[in-house]
């Protein structure tokens, strides 16, 4: 009988920084020297260094975005853009240094392994220290690798896909930054016709104070393949404001199906400015599941570009904004081929003065005939001090498209709370039950242990915000 594992999460797990024993740390601030040093230490090929330097130049010539949440407290000159932990890549759990292992144990990584999940990749600061893939998948040609290693081992594939057609290096200010200083992350390639039926997963954790995290995720699902990738992120709490600017590129080739699930629980002083995008070919399906409950400020709008006929995108998002938090999240879909369809469902919870905004875009080109899109945003406010905003943009360039949009904002009802309390639940239990019901449609899409974790995380956040 398999050992039953309970995932318990203690907020202090996330908020305590391990003693900083990093092997190498760049000086604060972004310069050509830092970029050269990153590339040198990673022993990168010339083309990657060129890409970094080009991005750096673009970055210096591009202003900060003028829309969305305020970034005025983000001091880009104070951030350390490269940190390498004091450990080599580990092949098995025993090779991981003890204090790092303790942290991961608190986060439940070995449990995840015990539950026979197919692979665990964990990023500790800028290096992946633990990375394993079950042999059966490797035998089928599935590659699940640290992004840094992939640059060395699979240069042709990486050169072709890395920040070229999906998220080009000139996309926006923080993509340019990311391209200049990216480090670590995940590379997955699934060969044609291969179906990876157990989710692949990785955990990211940021640990050097002021350490930026710029991991890159590149997933390629070749024709008629299937893959589900799960990422969970948490960061300990620091005094100075830190930045996370990751990038995710998904290639969903003809007839393939990809699901990307991510739970982001960065600590409250982090600016989480992430870019995630999928290119979906003919008959391909991409599914996004995103949960955002940490960070001080989040700007995240996963985007699907449906460029092949009959391509589909489904996007589910949950955001929780507690005291002092601004969650500016949403989904984007570009319909660029006939018979494409998209579904966006977004749920947000605001409590204790938190602000959540849905900012989404549905765009259709003239080629996107017989396409359809449906957008539903539900917002739940737990008190009068909290805020919810909705900015749904639609740019439809053909008259032959079916577009539906629905937005609902509700305050948690006195009648509902009274009803539950009249059956013996405390006010806090009643509120938690209503919130868990509100997010249930999204939670149901997650594998069980992640569903449990997400529920717990939201409950923990509510303990600080409801009162």
């Amino acid at each position: 009988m398999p050992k039953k594992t309970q995932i318990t999460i203690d907020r202090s797990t996330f908020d305590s920084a391990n003693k900083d024993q990093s092997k190498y740390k760049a000086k604060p601030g972004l310069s050509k020297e830092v970029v050269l040093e990153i590339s040198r230490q990673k022993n990168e090929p010339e083309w990657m260094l060129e890409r970094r330097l080009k991005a750096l130049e673009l970055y210096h010539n591009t202003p900060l975005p003028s829309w969305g949440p305020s970034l005025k407290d983000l001091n880009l000159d104070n951030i350390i853009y490269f940190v390498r932990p004091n450990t080599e890549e580990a092949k098995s759990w025993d090779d991981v240094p003890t204090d790092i292992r303790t942290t991961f144990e608190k986060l439940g990584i070995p449990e995840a392994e015990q539950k026979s999940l197919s692979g665990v990749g964990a990023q500790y600061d800028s290096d992946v220290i633990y990375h394993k893939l079950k042999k059966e998948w490797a035998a089928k040609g599935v590659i699940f690798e640290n992004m840094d290693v992939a640059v060395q081992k699979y240069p042709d594939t990486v050169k072709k896909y890395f920040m070229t057609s999906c998220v080009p290096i000139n996309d926006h200010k923080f993509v340019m930054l990311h391209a200049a200083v990216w480090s670590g992350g995940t590379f997955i390639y699934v060969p044609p016709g291969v179906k990876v039926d157990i989710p692949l997963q990785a955990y990211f954790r940021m640990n050097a104070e002021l350490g930026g995290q710029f991991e890159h995720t590149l997933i390629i699902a070749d024709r008629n393949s299937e893959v589900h990738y799960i990422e969970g992120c948490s960061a300990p709490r620091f005094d100075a404001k830190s930045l996370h600017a990751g990038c995710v590129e998904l290639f969903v080739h003809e007839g393939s199906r990809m699901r990307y699930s991510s739970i982001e629980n960065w600590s409250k002083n982090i600016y989480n400015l992430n870019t995630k995008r999928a290119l979906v070919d003919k008959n391909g399906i991409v599914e996004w599941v995103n949960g955002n409950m940490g960070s001080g400020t989040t700007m995240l709008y996963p985007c699907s570009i449906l460029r092949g006929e009959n391509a589909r995108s489904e996007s589910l998002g949950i955001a929780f904004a507690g005291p002092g938090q601004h969650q500016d999240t949403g989904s984007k879909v570009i319909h660029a081929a006939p018979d494409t369809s998209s579904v966006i469902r977004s749920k947000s919870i605001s409590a204790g003065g938190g602000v959540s905004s849905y900012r989404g875009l549905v765009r259709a080109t003239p080629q996107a005939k017989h396409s359809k899109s449906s957008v539903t945003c539900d917002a739940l406010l737990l008190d009068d001090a909290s805020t919810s905003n909705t900015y749904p943009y639609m740019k439809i360039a053909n008259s032959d498209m079916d577009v539906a949009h629905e937005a609902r904002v509700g305050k948690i009802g006195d009648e509902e709370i009274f009803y539950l309390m009249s059956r013996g639940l405390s006010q806090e239990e009643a509120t938690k039950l209503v919130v868990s019901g509100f997010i249930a449609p999204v939670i149901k899409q997650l594998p069980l242990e992640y569903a449990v974790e997400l529920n717990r995380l939201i409950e923990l956040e509510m303990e600080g915000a409801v009162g």
Partner: protein
Amino acid sequence: MLSLNNLHITADNKEIVKGVTLNVPAGEVHVIMGPNGSGKSTLANTIMGHPKYTVTTGTITFNNKDITQARPDERARAGLFLSMQYPPSIAGVTISQFLRAAYNATHTPAFSVMEFNKVLREKIDELEIDRSFIKRNINEGFSGGEKKRIEILQLLVLEPRFAILDETDSGLDVDALKVVMDGVKQFATPKRGVFIITHYARLLEFLKPNAVHIMREGNIVRTDGAELALEIEKKGFEK
């Protein structure tokens, strides 16, 4: 068991209940009748501690304890139960999830999932509710009659000591009314009390109350035996 002592209740600064005094001892069933707007539902909700209502004067005591200022969950744990006239729906929360949370909040030791499910299935069958109902979200898309059955299901599973039934008989056809009232009869043992708010004397075909109170404009204007309900049904509240 439940005593209301010179109870005055306001909502939005308007006095709705104006000095009600009543006592329902253990083992008794009391009925309150009265025209719309006379303050019956306000009384029921206030006994349960609804935050919308304020007790300005008077006390509510339950088992000799003053609960006038207690929170609704404290009252529930003390053994009070209100079957609501219009119970709200709660998205994403199933009846079984809700009932188990409520059971564990009001009982020690708590049931295991298996024990709980066994009890739940028994009661569901007694109330002739389709078993698939417990997987549905609370009151979402339920008909009026279905909501009332689910309220009585909660009564039978949670086994409180005192039940307040606010128009639980409204919106039920004769067959459903019989099932629901059988449930109430099963509940009304000598150690428990029942307080029924209704418009209809037909309920007395199923259950004989110890007292009937007539409420009008915030006061109890008359109290008598079961026969009073029949008189009201014939003649109306005017007199």
